[in-house]
């Protein structure tokens, strides 16, 4: 609680005690009025003061003014305890509201905590702390254990474990060593790192994320706009209703003034739209905050609203559903052992730096002994030939096998095939392919469970590869061998297929996905691997590149929307009911206070649920 809130709490308690005391004193007439004016003054002086001041500014339908009229009016109709209680509960509601909003703000600002305060620059052998904005590309900075990484860069020296949880929601720390790329906003946990800066602060990950989070409030959901519009008309309408109620029946229908003024005051107490005006943005704020704790950045509540209505999810393949890195996925030897086949291939390719060679060396998993290799010959477009341990090894595609006259056989696996021949005799082949991410299959299954009607994969890759991945993951549709422009066309065709309010989400990462990301109703980018252009064009960014986060994001959005709907319906119906009961004379001040403050408190409590996200 802040100092201001504590002061308010003290005033509320003092006023409550005074009110109870006043209720027990058997005073009459003026003495009784003064007894109740004391707690009223304690609790309501600032409201009265603001009401007077704001009227002089031309702010008529201000909540302070409405509360003042309602309570002062209650004093005039002789309802002293009610008058004090209305003001007391109004302040309780305000205090609660500011406390709840403060709490939500705090949990979100934990996310904003990723802003680095300084960078350590080395100068004349001494470390000096400078503003991260002053550091230029190419300069070397030092990040000590426990410090935030201030700028994006490459590790030059040292190795450490890095906590990326504030960005990705991933609790497992990442290992980095010389040569690793590191992103700003993460925390260096153990060792000392020397980092060469690759991006200016304004362009670095941390600045981009902060910018994204700070700007997210400017893109409002339809529900939010509806509420602000509604509030604009609601208050004048209710106040007008109160005025008519107070004047017309006594003038024309022979009603008693005190009775109808009392009913009009009930209207005034309910006339503040606070419950709605606060709870709807609070729910969206909570939903966006809860999502960002899971490493899902949403650029505005309108996207969260759209996400809840997702009908079709379209995926890019490489880098989105697959890792985008090549690995040996199968070894099929003829006559030799698997290990030996891998060894031959790795040794023959040991001088090459081609991605295929690298993945072979990685699969072989020990440093190839180059002294066993001689006469290496690279045949472009075919493969490599080398003499290993005196044997002539040929490793390459089927063209190479044909050339040396080895009898190779086809493989049923999709991917790049490296055939190996020893002294001109076929020894088997190794399959290298992009690997499907661990959670891709689960991601698709989770989307299906949530009622997504269609999942589609678009890829520029070969048809055989695309279809195999699609079948493995259980996607409904696959379109392969697409050029970047074709992807936009495919998405447009899919956009025509959706029905009703359904939305289409596209998930991608590469630079060529940017046009598709902006064309789709909701563009989702993979943040860690993804290019800057994709992140800028996207509406939602997944920081840890896990496709399973899409289902989680949809779940969070649906929960948020559910809370918003509950609050709107609940608040409106209670207010309408009490307004009606008040007009016919069946409701009293206490019910009006409930319809105002009570509803507000309940709606806020409900809204704070949006911040809590449970993992599946």
């Amino acid at each position, binding site marked *: 609680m802040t100092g201001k809130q504590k002061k308010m709490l003290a005033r509320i308690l003092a006023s409550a005690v005074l009110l109870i005391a006043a209720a027990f004193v058997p005073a009459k007439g003026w003495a009784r009025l003064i007894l109740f004016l004391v707690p009223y003054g304690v609790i309501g002086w600032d409201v009265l003061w603001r009401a007077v001041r*704001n009227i002089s500014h031309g702010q008529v339908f201000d909540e302070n003014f409405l509360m003042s009229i309602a309570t002062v009016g209650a004093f005039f109709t002789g309802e002293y305890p009610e008058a004090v209680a209305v003001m007391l509960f109004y302040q309780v509601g305000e205090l609660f509201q500011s406390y709840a909003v403060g709490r939500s703000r705090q949990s979100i600002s934990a996310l904003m905590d990723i802003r680095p305060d300084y960078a350590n620059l080395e100068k004349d052998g001494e470390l000096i702390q400078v503003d991260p904005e002053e550091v230029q590309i190419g300069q070397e900075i030092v990040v000590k254990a426990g410090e935030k990484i201030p700028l994006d860069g490459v590790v030059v020296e040292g190795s450490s474990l890095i906590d990326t949880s504030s960005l990705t929601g991933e609790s497992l720390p990442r290992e980095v060593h010389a040569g690793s790329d590191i992103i700003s906003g993460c925390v260096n946990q153990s060792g000392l790192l020397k980092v060469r800066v690759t991006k200016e602060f304004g362009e670095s990950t941390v600045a981009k994320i902060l910018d994204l989070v700070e700007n997210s*409030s*400017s893109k409002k959901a339809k529900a939010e706009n509806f509420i602000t519009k509604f509030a604009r008309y609601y208050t004048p309408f209710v106040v007008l209703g109160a005025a008519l109620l107070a004047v017309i029946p006594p003038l024309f229908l022979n009603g008693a003034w005190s009775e109808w003024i009392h009913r009009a005051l009930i209207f005034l107490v309910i006339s503040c739209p606070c419950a709605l*005006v606060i709870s709807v*943005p609070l729910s969206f704020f909570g939903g966006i905050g809860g999502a960002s704790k899971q490493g899902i950045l949403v650029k505005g509540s309108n996207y969260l609203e759209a996400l809840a209505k997702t009908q079709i999810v379209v995926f890019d393949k490489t880098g989105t559903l697959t890792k985008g890195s090549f690995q040996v996925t199968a070894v099929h030897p003829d006559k030799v052992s698997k290990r030996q086949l891998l060894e031959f291939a790795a040794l023959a390719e040991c001088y090459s730096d081609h991605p295929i060679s690298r993945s072979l060396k990685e699969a072989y998993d020990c440093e190839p002994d180059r002294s066993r290799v001689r006469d290496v010959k690279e045949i472009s477009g075919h493969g490599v030939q080398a003499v290993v341990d005196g044997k002539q090894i040929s490793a390459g595609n089927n063209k190479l096998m044909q050339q040396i006259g080895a009898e190779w056989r086809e493989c049923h696996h999709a991917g790049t095939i490296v055939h190996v021949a020893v002294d001109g005799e076929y020894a088997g082949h190794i399959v290298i392919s992009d690997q499907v991410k661990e959670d891709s299959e689960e991601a698709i299954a989770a989307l299906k469970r949530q009622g997504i009607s269609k999942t589609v994969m678009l890829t520029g890759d070969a048809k055989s590869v695309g279809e195999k991945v699609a079948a493995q993951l259980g996607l409904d549709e696959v379109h392969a061998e697409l050029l970047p422009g074709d992807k936009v066309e495919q998405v447009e065709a899919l956009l025509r297929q959706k029905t009703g309010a359904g939305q289409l989400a596209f998930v991608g990462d590469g630079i060529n996905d940017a046009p598709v990301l902006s064309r789709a109703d909701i563009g989702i980018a993979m943040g860690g691997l993804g290019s800057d252009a994709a992140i800028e064009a996207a509406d939602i960014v997944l920081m840890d590149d896990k496709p399973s986060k899409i289902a989680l994001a949809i779940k969070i959005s649906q929960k948020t929307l559910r809370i918003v709907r509950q609050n709107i319906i609940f608040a409106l119906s209670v207010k309408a009911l009490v307004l009606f009961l008040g007009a016919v004379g069946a409701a009293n001040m206490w019910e009006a206070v409930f319809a105002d403050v009570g509803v507000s408190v309940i709606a806020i409590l409900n809204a704070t649920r949006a911040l809590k996200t449970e993992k599946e």
Partner: protein
Amino acid sequence: MKKHYKMVDLDCANCAAKMEDAIKKIDGVKDATVSFMTQKLILDADDARYDEILKQVLKVCKKVEPDCTIQL
């Protein structure tokens, strides 16, 4: 030009909505957002008349909620 400002003591959500509405009506303001949740004002206005517009924005905010101040 688009700028962010921190708002201090913005205590009521309805006032934030009213301020936003009033700021948007100022001539030369392209877009404005007053976020009660983040306690921030995002103002997008004509470059040439920015300072003059900002003065009007401050005036309008004072009128809606005199307790609230905008940190420049």
